[in-house]
């Protein structure tokens, strides 16, 4: 695509994003705000998937950020902005403690460890009285800058957009750096990477911990608009759904995939006006269809390298006995 068209497209996107609160109704804007949070979670999942580690503890660290901000703002009257780095640091330190055991043991152990961690953290959030128990924390004050309070949806939207863009920029910079190349090599082939001298455990740990930091930020943002932290949100179910965003969006697209996936999964059920009871079933059926027919995700349609599904199935029949692509 010629560079001029790319620049124009980017310009249009920027204008759309800035003008969004004027263009859509408040209800839709609220959904966009939620989508921003889920996108950040999805980015976190894709980030760690890059080094071959599927993480199912996303909601747990999201919760760490959320609870840190909630509790510090309430009990210590701290400014919202100060709680952000604190939540991030706690998330990193705790993560370092816990993952020192899991990461050296490989992908499968890490995967299950993440799931167990998600369960354990949720249990922790709910059982400790200081955190407010299963009912959650008390309502917290809204974030302020000087005398300006973030009350209305457009303000919260811009705040979220800022966080999301920050997240994207940092991840983009990392992906294109030396550390990103090391991660790429680990994701492609652990054996080859380590034979070339890449310290797999160290780089994986760095990846996971950076991810932890931004997940906590997402958590802090989450309570900035929901104003309360409830243990139910931060469990295994929400952690697993994040994987859905990434794969539906496109597993090969580390930055845009999760955002597209989050948008689709959050908005489509709204517009289909599904009843609350049937919504999970329909979403799941659609997800299965998407995965079977479009394994490269929605963004994969745009990729000219994607074969139409019927051609793929013929190819599949030829290679029926081949090993599935499991990351090494």
């Amino acid at each position: 695509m010629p560079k001029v068209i790319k620049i124009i497209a980017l310009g249009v996107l920027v204008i759309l994003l800035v003008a969004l609160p004027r263009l859509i109704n408040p209800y839709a804007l609220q959904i966009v705000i939620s989508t921003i949070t889920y996108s950040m979670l999805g980015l976190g999942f894709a980030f760690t998937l890059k080094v071959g580690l599927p993480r199912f503890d996303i909601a747990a660290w999201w919760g760490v950020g959320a609870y840190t901000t909630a509790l510090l703002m309430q009990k210590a009257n701290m400014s919202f902005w100060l709680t952000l780095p604190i939540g991030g640091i706690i998330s990193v330190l705790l993560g370092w403690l816990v993952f020192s055991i899991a990461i050296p043991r490989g992908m499968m152990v890490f995967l299950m460890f993440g799931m167990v961690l998600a369960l354990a953290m949720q249990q922790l959030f709910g059982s400790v009285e200081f955190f407010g128990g299963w009912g959650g924390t008390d309502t917290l004050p809204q974030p302020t800058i000087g005398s300006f309070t973030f009350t209305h949806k457009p303000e919260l939207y811009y705040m979220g957009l800022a966080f999301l863009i920050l997240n994207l920029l940092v991840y983009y910079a990392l992906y294109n750096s030396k550390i990103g190349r090391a991660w790429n090599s680990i994701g492609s082939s652990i054996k080859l990477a380590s034979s070339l001298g890449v310290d797999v455990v160290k780089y994986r740990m760095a990846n996971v911990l950076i991810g932890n930091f931004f997940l906590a930020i997402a958590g802090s943002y989450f309570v900035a608009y929901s104003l309360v932290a409830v243990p139910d949100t931060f469990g295994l179910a929400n952690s697993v759904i994040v994987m859905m965003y990434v794969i539906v969006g496109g597993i090969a697209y580390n930055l845009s995939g999760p955002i597209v996936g989050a948008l689709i999964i959050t908005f489509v059920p709204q517009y289909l006006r599904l009843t609350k009871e049937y919504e999970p079933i329909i979403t799941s059926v659609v997800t299965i269809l998407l995965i079977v027919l479009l394994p490269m995700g929605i963004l994969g349609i745009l990729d000219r390298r994607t074969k139409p599904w019927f051609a793929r199935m013929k190819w599949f029949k030829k290679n029926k006995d081949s090993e599935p692509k499991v990351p090494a």
Partner: protein
Amino acid sequence: MTGGLFVQLLINGLMAGGIYALVSSGFTLILGVIKVFNFAQGQFYMLGAFITYGVVSILGLPYLLAILVALIAMVILGVIVHFAIIQWTLPSSFFHTMLVTVALGTIITQSALLSFGFKEQVIPAVVQGHATIGDITFSWGKLIVIAGAIVIMVTLYYFMKTKTGTAMLASSENREVASLQGINASRIFWVTMAVGCGLCGAAGALIAPVLSASSTMGTTIFNRSMLVVLVGGTGSMSGALVAAFLVGIVESFAYQYVGQLNLLVIFGFVAVLIFFRPGGLLGKPLPIPGQ
């Protein structure tokens, strides 16, 4: 602690352990042979329990028949799931297949919730009442679960020694070499799904009289199975067996003292164990890609 309480807790632990062993073995089998992380494993267990409820409480047929029906139904369902869905996502990637099982699990759980709500469906105990030795009381129902689980595990052990079973283990270790030996991987896959899901159905049928059938029992058992497989080593079936009983007993006793926090206790226990024995309890587990 009185002797009576100790025995009660032990029996609870063994009962839980037996069930975990069945479900975890099925999960490990599917993971090792087909390389599929079956998130819907718990749902087959739940369906087994509900089928038992249907057969015993609604149709009024004998319990033993219910176990058989649940087993066969889950075997068939597992095979259907394999041919309808899993077969198509296997070439995509490990994660695609995993997500498909997540979606499948959601469909089954949500359907159960819609049909039955959160209410537990009670099935009358197979053998009512308790036995008493001295001042220690044994609940017959629980003992039957333990016995049933042992019977099934023994059957599974001998099945693994048959030609098909050995083929499954071989495929799990090294699929390419196994196919060089003439093992038809595709046939092995659906057999594995059949066995893995059948085990869960049987487990659900066994536990149904004791725990009743509820829509959320699938997720609960799956969460516990994760712990078991972590401890036992991913891919090691004998490891899963030992780990299952260990986790069951630890959970039982921990619940007595810390109630809901027993999950954290088990988690700590698991963390310590992985730290010292990374390969799981029984040493060298069957190789799983991604290490």
